[in-house]
């Protein structure tokens, strides 16, 4: 289990505080002892492959699911057993869930009306919210007359019109095409900053998470694998799973040699690692952009080894060369057309800086994997 620095008690200033939440569906263990804090105004992404528990966690926060054990607090108040309509948060649903029988304006005014706001004022607020997402002109239309991107904005307006402290977004951009998705990512980020509402954003798209969130929560098999900003998660993944899921990674096995450190399978270099323990499994994470291709067997400051070109993929802007070193495959990513003269089978030298190697220690029995 990766180290999970998590305070046992809620931070006093946390807006959302989740403690030891467990959830089963029949025999399926969907959430295992999940704890998480979200601060006011923060943008947190729940990232993971499908079935990792991110949507289950979101639905527990919203109140559509009830955890088997654990507590969920919002603004210090225990809401674990509160029905959704009494929780001070709102949700943007994956397929928007706009009411097909109501106009756009009535959809957005729905929330304020349920909170007892008089009709006139509710419509006024709805208009303002629609203006904020640039859709005030569509107020009288019905959801299905709108494009996917427009429906997305309506769903957003409908969710923040109640001025919640916390907004939950369940893969809100997944139904949009790539270009629109990129644009909406920027708009969403700006809107979040403007409104000052904390966002908890579920996604399986790491690029989306990286570009929008202050903090990323990587989940796998119902467990939080790592919490941190995009940079930390990329450069210092806490587990093999995170290393593999976020970006591309060369995962090389290492052998513990006590206090001496960890011996790498490639280049047979000894990397310093305090208290390396033979009961642990060590994996070295090496990003392809840090693997250099050399003409000489030695290079100052680099760990080097010899191999043979396995494969060259040239995508125009960059080239990925896969090199076989012994029994291991090592990918190297170079900018530009770096593949020239490198034909499969050709001998080549690889080199990398020891500072770019990140070592992960996991119990040998850990079953976490891609």
């Amino acid at each position, binding site marked *: 289990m990766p180290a999970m620095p998590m305070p046992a008690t809620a931070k006093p200033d946390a807006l959302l505080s989740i403690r030891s939440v467990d959830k089963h569906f029949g025999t399926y263990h969907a959430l295992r002892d999940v704890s998480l804090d979200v601060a006011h105004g923060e943008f947190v992404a729940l990232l993971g492959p499908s079935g990792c528990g991110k949507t289950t966690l979101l639905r527990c926060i*919203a*109140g559509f699911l009830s955890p088997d054990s654990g507590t969920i607090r919002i603004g210090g108040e225990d809401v674990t057993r509160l029905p959704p*309509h009494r929780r001070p948060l709102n949700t943007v649903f994956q397929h928007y*869930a*706009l009411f*097909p029988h109501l106009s756009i304006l009535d959809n957005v005014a729905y*929330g304020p009306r349920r909170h007892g706001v008089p009709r006139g004022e509710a419509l006024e607020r709805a208009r303002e919210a629609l203006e904020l997402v640039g859709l005030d002109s569509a107020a009288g239309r019905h959801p299905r007359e709108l494009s996917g991107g427009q429906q997305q904005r309506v769903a957003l307006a*409908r*969710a923040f019109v*109640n001025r919640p402290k916390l907004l939950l977004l369940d893969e809100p951009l997944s139904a949009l095409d790539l270009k629109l998705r990129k644009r909406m990512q920027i708009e969403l980020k700006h809107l979040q900053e403007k409104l000052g509402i904390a966002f908890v954003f579920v996604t399986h798209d790491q690029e989306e998470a990286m570009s929008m969130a202050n903090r990323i929560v990587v989940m796998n098999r119902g467990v939080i694998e790592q919490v941190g900003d995009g940079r930390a998660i990329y450069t210092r993944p806490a587990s093999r799973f995170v290393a593999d899921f976020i970006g591309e990674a060369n995962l090389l096995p290492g052998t513990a040699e006590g206090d001496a450190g960890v011996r790498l399978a490639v280049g047979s270099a000894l990397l310093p690692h305090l208290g390396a323990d033979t009961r642990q499994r060590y994996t070295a994470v090496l990003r392809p952009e840090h693997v250099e291709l050399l003409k000489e067997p030695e290079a100052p400051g680099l760990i080097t080894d010899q191999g043979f070109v396995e494969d060259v993929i040239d995508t125009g802007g960059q080239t990925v060369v896969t090199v076989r070193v012994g029994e291991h495959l090592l990918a190297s990513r170079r900018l530009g057309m770096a593949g020239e003269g490198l034909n499969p089978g050709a001998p080549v030298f690889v080199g990398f800086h020891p500072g770019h190697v990140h070592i992960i220690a996991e119990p040998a029995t850990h079953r976490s994997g891609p």
Partner: protein
Amino acid sequence: MSAAMNRALPLLAAPVAFFIAFFAVPMIVVVSSSLMAGGVPSLGNYARVLLDQYHWDVLAATFRIAGLTTVACALLGYPLAYYLVRVVKSAALRRTCVILLVLPLFTSNIVRSFGWMVLLGRNGLVNDALVGVGILDRPMRFLGTELGIVIGLVYILLPFIVLAVGNALAAVDPALEDASSDLGATPFDTFRTVTFPLCLPGLMSGIVMVFTLAVSAYVTPALLSGGKITVFPMLIFQQYSTVFDVNYGGALSMTLLVMTLVLVGLAGWIGNAGATGRKAQ
């Protein structure tokens, strides 16, 4: 177009010819007979139907019975549909209930009405129970009353409304109800503002279907009326089976048909007007 026609024609020739020969032409024969009296064209048959107070009384009884049946079906069917679709969690239980709902639909009206003849008799189970519990002092007469016919018709038509409403309910995206409660609506508010409006087309088409079938029902009223109450389809049957006056009978048939078609048209209109509310994906 002509290529499509060339492909469609061989497929359509037999069914269309059959429907013209045994459906369209017979109906045209009825219409033309209804417009003939004593061998000459005449509207006399329709005058006979529409100017006779007796027919209006029969029509009123027919519509009263159909109306009561429809209201009762809606009031009993809606909760059952909601219960089966939204409350029952066990798929096996729901499946059993669906089978029990369809079983009556697969059984002849006559068999089902016959069951009520037994149950509603002076010494039937219903009277025994009502007297036994103390609701009634002595057995009540059901057979030969409009109430008896309504009980029988509600029984026969109830599954239609349960299935219509139930299928509409099952098609409502649960995310819409989640969204409603997420926005602060209480469960009752969610039902009132989201679930009910979205199922309304299903309910309305069920209602129109039940009303249409109730107006044109013959077997159940015939068995449960005990000869004391006449509904409109009985008049038609009498004209063709005993009196054999095809001109007058034709006018009666057309009167019933036109009323039915107006209702079906209404159903189609409501169905189109309320075509919203399917899954919003």
